[in-house]
Each structure stands twice: as C-alpha cells, then as structure tokens.
C-alpha cells in the first residue's frame, strides 16, 4: 500500500494532465479549451509540488527567531517558487486568451470551433 | 602565384551587367557596354594564351568557399579552349544580336543583354574553374541566368519552355551538388587534375559508379545526352541569338565541357576503365549521336532540326572523353571549339532567314540560296563542316575521334562515326538542296541580304570554321591546346 502512495500523486497528475490536454485539443468550444488549459497547468503545478514533498518536513517558513534552519525540517522551497511563476503565467495566458475570445465573438458571433470554421470558410468563398 | 587575369576575364562581363541595366533607355550606350566588356574579356583571355601554350597554368585563389576549398580559377589548356571559344563568340553574337533584335524590334532587350553577359561570365567561370565547387558555382549561375533568355518572349509557349528547362536543370543541379559534395568528401580540397583525382580516393568501385552517374546526370542534362535532352527543343522558342548562345557558346557547350571535366579531370581515363564505366558512357553517347541525327531527320522546322543536330554533335565530345585515348580526348576538346563555330553559323543563318523572310520551315527555303547567297553560303559551309567534310573544322575533330576509338580498341565506334556522318549529310543536304536548286526558275533573282550586322557574323564564323579546318592551330591554337590537355590526361605529356 505504501508503495502505491509513494507515487499515487503522479498517477493523479498524469490523469489530470491528460484530461486537460484532451480538453485543449478536442473540445469544440473555445472557452472550454481555455479552461482545459488551466486544468492542464494545475496538473503541472501538482507535479512539481509532489516531488517537492519531504517526509517529516514542514512548510518552508522558518519560525520566528530560528536563525539556522535545518534542511531536513523544511520542504524544498524551490519548486514552490517556480510554481508561483507558473500560476501567474497561467492567469496571464488565460487573460490574453479570453481577450482573443471576446474579439472573436464580436466578429463571428460564435465560439464553437466547427461553426467558426464554417463561417470563415463561407466568408472566404 | 596569383595571376588575376582569369578572374578579370570572368568579372568583366558581370561588371557590365550594372551599366547595361542602368542604360535601359539608351540602346546605343547599352550595346556599347556590351561591346566594351566583350572586347576586354577577349583581351584578357587571349593574353593568357601564351602562358598556357608555354606550359604554365595561370591561376588565382580567392576567398574560401568552404573549408579548404577556395574560389579557385585556373587557366589550363582544356579550359582555355572553352574560354577562347566563348569570349570570341560573344563578340560575334553581340554584333549579331544588335542586328537581329533591333531588326525584329524585340522587347525586353535590356534583360536580354544583361542575362547574356551573366551567361558568358558563367561560361568563362566554368572554363577556368579549378575545383568542383567553383565549377558548380558557375554552372548553377549559368542555369539561372539562362532562364530569362529562354522565356524571353513572355509568351505562353516560352513560359512552358522555361518551366521545362527549370525542371530538367534543377533536378540535375541537385544530383550535381551531391556529386560535387561527395567528391570533395572523398578527396578533400582536390582540384581538377589531368588524368583524374579520384583514383587515390579509396572509394569502392560501386561507390564510384554511383558518383559518376550522379555527375553525368547533373551535367548531362545541360549537355543534352539522349534521355536527358527534352528541354533543349522546348527551349527553341527563344529568339535565335539565344539559341545560338545556348547551343554554341554557353549552355550546352558548358555541359559538354563539364562532361570532359568529369570524365577526364575528375575520374580520368584509367579509373574510368577500371570501374568499367567507359564503355557504358561511350555507348550512351553513341546512341545519342545516332538517335539525335535520326530525330533531326524527322524535323521539318529548321531550328528544331538544328537543335537535334546539336544533341547529336555534342555527344561526340562525350564519346571522345569516355573513350579515353589521347587522340579521342584531343578530338573531343577540339570539337568543343569546332562545333561552336559551325553551329553558331548555322543558327545565325537560320536567324537571318527568319528576320528577312519569317520562314521557319525547311520547305519554305526554296530558292533562298540566290536571294541570300552569303547567308546560305555560310550555312552550306558550316553544314558540310559538321558532317565532317575534309578541309573543314569538323573533319579534324572526327578524324581524331576515329583514331582515338581505334587506339582504345573500340573500333565499333568508328562505324558509329561514319554512320553519323552519313546521317549528317542526310539531314543537311535537303536544306542546302532546297535553298539552291529548288524554287521558281523563272523568278528574277535579286540580292536580298539583311543588315550587315546580321549577315556579317555568320560569314565570319563560317570563314573561321574553314580556317580551323585547314590550319587547326589558326589564331587560337585550339589544336595544340587540345593535344596538350589530352597528353597530360593520358600520361603521354
């Protein structure tokens, strides 16, 4: 059982990643693609946080007055720092994506990919 | 020892391109530039002649093209033959072009003269190239520069001809590129060497055979060896001076010259025999000689008949280079010059006839011999020469080729040469006959030549062909040069 838990997070991450990837590529609705993108990124964040974990260690904030913390007592802060970046980047990308969607909708009045392609094709002809 | 004259010989016409393009609105100035460049180029090339005859090879190395491979120009005897031919004929062709183009009020003349200058530069570059990469550089430049000439008319047919030309030459260019790269890989930094440089490469015979095939496809397209000749008749839509240039001066001749370079200077006769490819190449060449002549017989259009004649004649050169005996090689190299003078005469004549009468079919020529005696006289002379009549230039090369065939033990090719001579007579004689002995006897015959710039060039080249036949070393020392190269290649020198 413990062997399962040792990497259980990775299985979860893998499933979440696939759900997100599939949503991004195969969903016809553009808004959902964007949501799937966020799910995809959450999976990556979970992945980083999972391998940052350290048994018997606590949150990477040193208690007040502790001048020389020991490495074994605190979780690896580096992945946390990196994922802070990833979250912010993700929200930024989402914002840009939504801005694009709003302007696409204004022009074509749809966010369904097949319908959108159809409209563009008709316009081209 | 850097002698920059080969470089100047190449550059002078390239440098003329700018002024030619800028003088678009002033035809006289434009043609003056062409003439000045042609004269300078001829001067540079001829000034190299004494040194080469004395056994030297003036050369210059410029910037590196690739690691260990410089842009290397060198005037060796074989290259001199081609360079002399191209630079001489450029002058004549320029004169003729002015007459022809202005006479026909042809459009796009600036583009024509500019491309022409680039073509001649590339031809000289091909002649003087000392290593495969330099050769490739000028060869490809020639390919591109010829395209505007082929599509000169801008007609639907011209565009189609241009496409065909591009398709053939660019596919060939890839083969040539691979072959050149491969050869520089086998022998890094090699320069052309009489007798070939690949013998020491250590490659297996099978590899060498593939390499040779790549080379022959790459260059053979320009030389119009039989299965690869399709573009040449299609390119006949171009104006006559262009055809003259294609056939006699630059393009096809560059292909033939390239075959000599590959067979004699990259592979060398002995290696060729070793890998057993000499006989194959010679056979293909022989087949082209006969096949081209037969196709020529079947054509009623004058220019197309001349085109197939070229297909046939150029394979003499390939045949000689493939046979590999001294006389054969000498004959092949001499034929480069001889065929140049004779074929350009024929095309000039075809052009003159066209400007005067707009006739293109052979049957239309009836009685023309009396209206245009100089033109048709020159035509007859050149036709006889091509067929190999003694006292004309063609005889010298064929005699040597036949000798070479016997020396190399392939007597069967002598038979081919004889057969070809008959076929040559067979397709030229009707033209001459129609022009001089057919037509209305009762019609009043009057002298009706065109402008002097149109009839003088063929007359000059015909006389030159005659002179070369009687004195093979006349002025340009073609014969000596050819033999020098041949002896060096076969180890006799």
């Amino acid at each position, binding site marked *: 059982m413990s062997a399962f838990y040792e*990497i259980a997070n990775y299985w979860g991450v893998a499933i979440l990643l696939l759900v997100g990837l599939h949503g991004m*590529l195969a969903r016809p609705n553009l808004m959902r693609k964007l949501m799937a993108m966020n799910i995809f990124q959450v999976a990556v964040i979970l992945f980083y946080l999972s*391998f940052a974990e*350290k048994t018997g260690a606590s949150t990477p904030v040193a208690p007040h007055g502790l*001048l020389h913390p020991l*490495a074994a*007592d*605190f979780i690896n802060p580096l992945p946390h720092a990196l994922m802070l970046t990833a979250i*912010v980047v993700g929200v930024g990308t989402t*914002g840009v994506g939504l801005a694009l969607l709003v302007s696409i909708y204004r022009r074509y009045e749809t966010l369904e990919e097949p319908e959108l392609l159809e409209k563009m094709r008709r316009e081209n002809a | 020892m850097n002698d920059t004259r080969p470089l100047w010989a190449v550059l002078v016409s390239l440098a003329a391109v700018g002024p030619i393009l800028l003088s678009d609105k002033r035809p006289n100035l434009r043609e003056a530039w062409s003439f000045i460049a042609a004269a300078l180029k001829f001067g540079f090339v001829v000034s190299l002649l004494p040194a080469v005859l004395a056994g030297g090879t003036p050369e210059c190395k410029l910037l590196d093209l690739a690691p260990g491979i410089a842009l290397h120009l060198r005037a060796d005897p074989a290259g001199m033959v081609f360079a002399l031919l191209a630079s001489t004929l450029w002058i004549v062709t320029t004169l003729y072009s002015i007459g022809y183009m202005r006479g026909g009020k042809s459009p796009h003349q600036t583009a024509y003269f500019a491309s022409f200058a680039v073509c001649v530069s590339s031809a000289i570059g091909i002649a003087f190239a000392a290593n495969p990469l330099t050769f490739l550089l000028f060869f490809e430049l020639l390919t591109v520069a010829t395209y505007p000439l082929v599509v000169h008319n801008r007609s639907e047919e011209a565009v189609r001809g241009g496409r065909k030309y591009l398709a053939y030459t660019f596919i060939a260019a890839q083969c040539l590129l691979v072959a050149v790269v491969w050869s520089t890989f086998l022998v890094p930094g090699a320069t052309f060497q009489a007798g070939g440089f690949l013998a020491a490469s250590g490659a297996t015979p099978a590899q060498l055979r593939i390499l040779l095939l790549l080379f022959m496809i790459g260059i053979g397209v320009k030389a119009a060896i039989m299965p690869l000749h399709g573009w040449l008749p299609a390119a006949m839509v171009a104006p006559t001076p262009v055809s003259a240039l294609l056939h006699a001066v630059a393009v096809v001749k560059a292909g033939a010259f390239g075959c000599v370079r590959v067979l004699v200077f990259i592979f060398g006769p002995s290696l060729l025999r070793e890998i057993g490819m000499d006989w194959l190449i010679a056979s293909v060449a022989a087949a082209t000689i006969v096949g081209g002549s037969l196709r020529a017989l079947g054509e009623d259009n004058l220019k197309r008949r001349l085109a197939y004649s070229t297909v046939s004649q150029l394979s003499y050169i390939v045949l000689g280079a493939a046979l590999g005996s001294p006389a054969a090689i000498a004959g092949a190299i001499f034929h480069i010059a001889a065929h140049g003078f004779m074929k350009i005469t024929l095309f000039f004549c075809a052009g003159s006839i066209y400007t005067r009468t707009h006739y293109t079919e052979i049957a239309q020529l009836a009685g023309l011999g009396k209206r245009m005696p100089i033109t048709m006289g020159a035509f007859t002379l050149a036709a006889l020469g091509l067929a190999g009549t003694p006292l004309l230039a063609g005889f010298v090369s064929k005699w040597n080729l036949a000798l070479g065939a016997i020396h190399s033990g392939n007597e069967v090719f002598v038979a081919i040469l004889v057969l070809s001579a008959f076929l040559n007579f067979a397709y030229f004689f009707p033209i001459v006959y129609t022009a001089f002995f057919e037509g209305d006897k009762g019609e009043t015959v009057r002298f009706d030549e065109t402008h002097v710039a149109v009839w003088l060039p063929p007359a000059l080249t015909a006389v030159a062909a005659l002179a070369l036949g009687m004195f093979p070393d006349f002025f340009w020392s073609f014969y000596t040069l050819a033999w020098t190269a041949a002896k060096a290649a076969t180890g006799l020198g």
Partner: protein
Amino acid sequence: MRSLSWIAVLFTGVVLFYTAPSLPPIGDPESPASSHVSPYYIENSVSDMATPNLVTTVVTDYRGYDTLGETTVIMTAGLACLLILGFWTPMRRHPTETDRLSFGSPVLDAAARLLVPYILLFALYVLFHGHHSPGGGFQGGTLLAAGVILVRLVRGRDCGWGVDREQAVRLACSGAFLYYAVGLITMLMGHLFLDYSKLPLPLTAAMRRNMGILGVEIGVTVAVAGTMILIFDCLHATPHEDREAEVSAERAGAEGHT
C-alpha cells in the same frame, strides 16, 4: 483533428504512465531535488537576508531575475489584452444612471462599501508581511486588484473607481519598472544586477537584502494589481456601439412596462 488529438493524448499518456514509477518516490528526503540545491536555500536564507519565508527569498532574491521576468509576463499579458481589445468607452469617475444597468442594487452597494476597505487593507498586510508568512507581492497585488474589481462589479462596467484604464496601464508598467529599477541601481553602481546587498542603504548586508526584497515586492504588487485591473477592464468594457444599443433597448423596455 479529433483523432489527431486522441493520438496526442494517448501518446502522452503512455509516456506518463510508463515513466512515473521511475521518478524518485514522493516525500523521500534523499531525492536529488531535496538534496542538491535546495538545502542551501533552507539553511542560509535567514542569515542571508533576514527573511524567514523561504519561498519569498527564493522568489525575490535567489531567483529574483525569474520573478522580474514573471512580472514582465504579467505586464505583457495586460498589454496584450489592451492591444487585442483596446479602450472602448471612456470611464467615468462617478457612476451615472446607465452604469448601474447590470449590478446596481442597494444591498450590493452597501456590502461593497463595507468589504472593500478591508480587502485593500488585507492586501497591504499580505504584501508587507510576506517576509514572515505566506504572502507577498503576487498575492497582495491580486487582492488589491480584487478589491477594485469588486467595486467595478457592483457599480457597473464602466466605473473608474480607484484607477481608470489609462492609470491601470501606467501602474502595470511602472510596477514592473520599479522592480527593474531596483536591479538597475545595483548594476549602475558597478555591481551585479539585482544584487540587493549592494544597495546604497546604511544597513547590514542581510538587511539591505531584506529591504531590496521589500522594494521589488512593492513593484510586483503594483504591477500585478494594475495588470489585473487592466485585463478585467478590457474584458468587461463595452464597445461603444453595443452600449448605445443596450441603453436604447433598456429604455424601450422601461417604457413598455409603464
């Protein structure tokens, strides 16, 4: 397209499930990730920069240049939205009748009046206490933006409470530039970019680093807050012609009822 994406998903899945077991087990203190570089951060950040929040030290100092990039990403996103959607209707400092079309209701208004000051205050706390507890520039900036956005939601879409759109652009850019400037100062003084220990402050090296962190955190806060407001405004604003149509439709509806 559909089948292609299934293939991509399948392929990724195979790679994931095939390779996950060979990763170091979760929670292993001896795993390379926990034993190579990170111990340095844990053991030295208190003495290096007098900051107990290890994540903050990594984010803003040890890997401070990443965070400058990240702040720039945020700014880029804001400018991208601006370029794509642009300014449509001008904003008003004070709400007019039409601004109240969607959300305006007394209850919401009163709730917002009550909440917003606390949100903003909390934002500042998060920012300044980021050295000692979870929090810092990104969180603080987000909360600031959340406060402003709440007012926007309650008061109507074109309300320019707090900052208007032009100001939001300038906030986003100048916040990022503040971060940049802290690094630039040390660079211009002949030291390395972002080397806070060389800041011209009359303090110990660790405290100078501490102050440097505070400086960049403020920059991040301003940039994040400005950008989030900017993106919201771009997404939320109404194009001019739509707005005219909506207002007239509303009027027509109101007249129909009476």
